[in-house]
């Protein structure tokens, strides 16, 4: 009798969990919007303009920055944004 074939999985065998999106804000009036600068050159120029436009629409704007664009945002920063903001805009740059 032949030996059964064993197939080994080269992957971690995990899959991303499904998460429901937060409800989309229907208006920006009084809504806190976080602007995350990833710390690449000129990201601040882009976000300054976005902040201006959001302010005109009545949003409350909070600014955040990653210590470096080369690494994921630290857990504390992600938590801070998640607890303080209803929406977030992240700037890439260059």
């Amino acid at each position, binding site marked *: 009798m032949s030996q059964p074939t064993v197939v*080994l999985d*080269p992957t*971690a065998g995990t899959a991303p969990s499904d998460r429901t999106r937060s409800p989309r804000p229907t208006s920006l009036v009084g809504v806190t919007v976080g602007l995350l600068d990833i710390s690449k050159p000129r990201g601040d120029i882009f976000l300054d303009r976005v902040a201006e436009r959001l302010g005109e629409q009545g949003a409350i704007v909070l600014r955040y920055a990653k*210590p*470096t664009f*080369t690494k994921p945002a630290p857990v504390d920063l992600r938590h801070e944004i998640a607890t303080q903001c209803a929406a977030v805009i992240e700037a890439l740059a260059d």
Partner: protein
Amino acid sequence: MLDGTTRAADEVVAVMPPALVECTVEKVAVNAVMAGCLPEYLPVVLAALEAVCTDEFNMHGILATTMGVGPVLVVNGPVSSRIGMNSGVNALGQGNRANATIGRAVQLVVRNVGGGAPGGIDRATHGSMAKLGFCFAEDEAGSPWTTLSEDRGFDRSQDVVTAFCGEAPRVLVDQKSRSADSLVRALAEGLRASVSPRVVMGMDGMLVLSPEHMSRFRDAGWDRNRFMAELAGHLTVEADDILAGAGGIEEGLPEGLAGMTLPKFRPGGLLVVHAGGSAGLFSAIVGGWVNGPMGSEPTSREITP
């Protein structure tokens, strides 16, 4: 494959980016088989993964960046000849089975276990062959100098793998220099263009000296320290030449650096290795990526059974 290591199959080697999953020796072994490794290569693969999965090496960022960089692995110590690694002809190219499959196994683990697939977290604009797998051994026996691992604080008898975040190598030609002084100037001139002539200090580099180029320094009695000092003396950049806007080019340094003479590389930001075939008046440059705490630090780990 698991016979190649004394470590238990279920031992966690590293937390693998980008998915940050615990990667066991067994998962590494499965990928090493797929890469074509022999069992005796496995300890090198394991040590390389320990090196790249550190905060200072920053494999996540290296994977995610639009630049075409990957972990460039240099192996030092008796292990390289024991497992038949190539430090000579074509060491940076097809290499041989050990070179090619160790580098490939590391990349497969990041891709398969860490989930770092091209087009997903991996956003490289062009990518480069360095992302396929880039691993070679230093030619220690043929070098009059201390080795890369000795330069990084290890003993010559230790087996060490050093991971450097770099792109594919490019050739630096100098076929006419007969003196150490001439050749070091030529190498400095070529290195000034590493990554871009307008990048200074922010990105590291690696210089792979060929045996024929090394012979110029051997003949002149230069050791590694003398070479590095002479090279640093020539490897400077006049900021005025590369200020933003200079020469009609918008890329460049801020105006505040005007008038300064700057080193091309930060202190310790150029790694020098000896490898290659015995004929050929060429060396190779491997351009780096964002360095230091803001990016990636070259990272070495001892290879253990």
